């Protein structure tokens, strides 16, 4: 047996952290251990935030790095050796999947579940990256979409982690802002 044939037999495809690979359509199409499928990603957004599958119908999903899923709306080859395709969207390969703040900012206005509306002071605290007690929340624990009102409409700010009466801001360092409270 040639070396090539042997390695093809022994090595199942693995996740190469350096390149973008398209997510398989369904769990049955999965070749790379642990990789989320498109179906599971769509299910997750629907289940967690009630953002319908049709919202993402035109987009493709890609994994680069362990569990980092990107959303892309252009034409791409497979696999694609580039620096980035589209934007980071979701962190998988962990018990609780976590949406990125950017994904929530881009698509979160459509959510009708696990959305926590913050008052002006809470919103400024959240954007600064600070944790705060919000015992009155009686919804799910875990990752929530934090919103606030801007000129009469609710706007997503980012992702919060709600545990034990506390909303933790998971706004990444580079995106934290020191904002005046707008009443």
């Amino acid at each position, binding site marked *: 047996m040639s070396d090539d044939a042997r390695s093809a037999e022994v090595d199942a495809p693995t996740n190469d952290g350096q390149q973008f690979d398209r997510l398989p359509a369904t769990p049955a199409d999965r070749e790379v251990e642990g990789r989320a499928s498109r179906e599971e990603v769509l299910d997750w957004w629907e289940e967690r935030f009630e953002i319908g599958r049709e919202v993402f119908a035109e987009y493709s999903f890609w994994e680069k790095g362990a569990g980092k899923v990107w959303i*892309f709306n*252009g034409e*791409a*080859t497979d696999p694609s050796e*580039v620096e980035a395709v589209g934007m980071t969207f979701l962190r998988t390969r962990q018990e609780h999947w976590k949406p990125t703040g950017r994904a929530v900012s*881009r698509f979160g206005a459509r959510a009708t579940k696990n959305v926590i509306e913050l008052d002006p002071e809470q919103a400024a605290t959240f954007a600064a990256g600070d944790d705060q007690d919000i015992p009155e929340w009686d919804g799910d624990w875990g990752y929530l979409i934090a919103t606030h009102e801007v000129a009469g409409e609710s*706007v997503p700010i980012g992702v919060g982690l709600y545990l034990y009466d506390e909303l933790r801001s998971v706004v990444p360092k580079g995106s934290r802002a020191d904002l005046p409270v707008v009443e």
Partner: protein
Amino acid sequence: MNPLDRYESLVDDVDAFRAACDRPLPSVVRTNRIAATPARVREAFDEAGVAYEPVDWHDGLFRLPDGNPGGNWPYVHGWTHGQEEVSVLPALALDPQPGERVWDACAAPGSKTTQIADAMDDEGTVVANDNNLGRLSALRHNAERLGITNSIVTNQDARNFSTKPLAFDEFDRALVDAPCSCEGTCRKNPDVLDQWTLDHVHAVAGIQKGVLARAVQATRPGGVVVYSTCTFAPEENEAVLDHVLASEDCELVEFDLPLETDPGVTEWDGETYDESVTRTKRVYPHRNDTGGFFCAKLRVGGESDESGDAVDREVAA
């Protein structure tokens, strides 16, 4: 020597030119229509008490007289992007359409890439390339902040850009927003005048010619290439176009910009350029109280293939 001296022979009103170059520029933001309308941005500014002034030739631009373009909610939500007024011109000239394939050859930190994606309604593909990895990380940050999903980021020398990592080998449009001597940004960053050297002008002109030639080659017949700089130096503007007109299959076309411009020059420092460089546009600071800029629009030669229309093209989802 102050490099602005050498351009006095090109402008009609030297005093007004020099006076404008000495005045600082206000902070300006561009509305990211992927996320919000200009009306929404105005409402949010009003609610928060952020002072702003409209820009009469572009409804998506706002001057912020108090500065601090990042210190307000519209910015945090990705509704606005800090960008100098003249810097929106090349993407207007490029006029990219939803569904097209567009190359931004020198893209970092992504002001124009994100404006292009916005003009495309975030549909189609914009390939944002730069040879500087550090600057590309700023581009990626900006693109994510503005919620852009139709970009591919590549890190290549644009002079020998390879389309191999892409799903296609020709673009509908390309923008070359070239590295340059940057005197046009002196109202923001006066240091550029101290750092200016003629050697740099000649060195960077070589890079500009290489990148523009590659952009013409990588664009389909009938496609559009826009070349822009923020320098007044004819060596980096008209001379670059003159060179590429001679070496590649393309022509300069007339186009409109929404502010007052001067035509490109056909003579400089003992050299003469192709007559058609008068179709390029110079933006002098005193004309519209902006930074300085240069912009040219090329049509790539050959039969355009109408069946390749981006609108009909099926995007591989």
